[in-house]
């Protein structure tokens, strides 16, 4: 076989006979558009999942636990649904594999692009969690206007917290601390504020304040390790 002529002859004969066809430009435009849209939807879905996680942690009170120091951080990490966090990590890796075909990604080191993707998903998710989206969906779920699966997702109580994180609304103040109502039932719990209780935002509690408590519970009494008022929740509470 003479290399100089055989390839050209063979390929050009097949082109002339029509046995190999040039794919039209729209085929590639469509494919790359669908791929890009798919990647974007995947990215937005991951951001949504992160924002939902932040929203649930926020609603359960675990989000505020780190303000009580090391033990608060410990409670926060114990509150995280690690299987979901792991799954999100795996999905970010999948996203990295998908976008690695783009030159602006493969020209970066794997570590850099994975970190950028993680940061984008985390910051994007956090930004979405700051919008009224989840609160609005919670209200819709309450009024039964969401489809079953989504509706169940947004129906309180949000149990995403460790067993030493509590939230409630103060119904009375006492010489030892406060009495708060449990939002899930009509019971009340006494919260003891001692000399070692961490009060990052002061102790100026009044009835009606929504508070988050980290501490050890014994029946209807909690020895508070940390207690703080949760701000900007009145509007949400009145909506509920």
């Amino acid at each position, binding site marked *: 076989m003479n290399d100089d002529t055989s390839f*050209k002859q*063979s390929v050009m004969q097949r082109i002339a006979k029509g046995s*190999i066809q*040039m*794919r039209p*430009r729209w085929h590639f435009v469509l494919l790359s558009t669908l791929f890009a849209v798919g990647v974007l939807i995947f990215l937005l879905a991951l951001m949504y999942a992160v924002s939902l996680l932040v929203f649930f942690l926020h609603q359960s009170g675990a989000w505020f636990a780190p303000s009580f120091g090391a033990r608060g951080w410990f409670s926060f990490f114990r509150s995280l649904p690690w299987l979901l966090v792991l799954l999100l990590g795996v999905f970010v890796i999948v996203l990295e594999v998908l976008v690695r075909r783009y030159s602006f990604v493969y*020209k970066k*080191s794997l*570590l850099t692009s994975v970190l950028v993707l993680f940061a984008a998903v985390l910051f994007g998710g956090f930004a979405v969690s700051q919008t009224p989206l989840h609160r609005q969906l919670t209200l819709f779920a309450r009024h039964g206007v969401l489809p079953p699966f989504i509706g169940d997702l947004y129906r309180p109580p949000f149990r995403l917290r460790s067993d030493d994180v509590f939230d409630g609304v103060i119904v009375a103040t006492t010489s030892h601390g406060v009495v708060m109502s449990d939002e899930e039932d009509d019971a009340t719990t006494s919260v003891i504020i001692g000399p070692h209780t961490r009060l990052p935002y002061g102790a100026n509690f009044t009835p009606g304040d929504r508070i988050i408590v980290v501490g050890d519970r014994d029946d209807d009494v909690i020895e508070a390790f940390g207690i703080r008022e949760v701000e900007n929740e009145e509007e949400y509470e009145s909506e509920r």
Partner: protein
Amino acid sequence: MQETDEEIALRVQKGETELFGELVERYQTKLLRYGRKFLSDSDDVKDIVQDIFIKSYQNIQSFDTSRRFSPWIYRIAHNEYVNALKRRAARHTVFDFDIDTLLPHLAAPDTADSATMERDLRATLEAHLDKLDAKYREPLILYYLESMDYKEISDILQIPVSTVGVRLGRARARLKEIAGDTII
């Protein structure tokens, strides 16, 4: 003045399909040489090169004529040769994780004796190339035998430019081990 590859590709895209033969002529020797080095002179290189041209023709509308044609067709060739290697290998991993691409690397600047070293390397490549892993063999072929720059190799292999430098450095070191004092 001779038309560039990109100009010919544009005319093919616009319907002058007979001009594709000109691109075949320009690249057949290069792709055969690349394939023979990459696949260690396998008998099926000619068939694979034919497939590369067929795929190039079928997909030529996806080629962005504002970019260079050479890395585009070499990328198709790379995929075909890698697939051939995988078919041949008994073990085959779906996800080819490469530690070289994990961390950012600084590209090493060329030294004054680079040119001399390149000449020596080029001379010993032929004899020892088949003793290197494909991962290191391929950038050596593209850089020394196909005279491509780091950026073009980066586009063909879809790895960071700095990783191209790292692989070339490691490949040179490995060649030095294999060839002993005959290089450097």
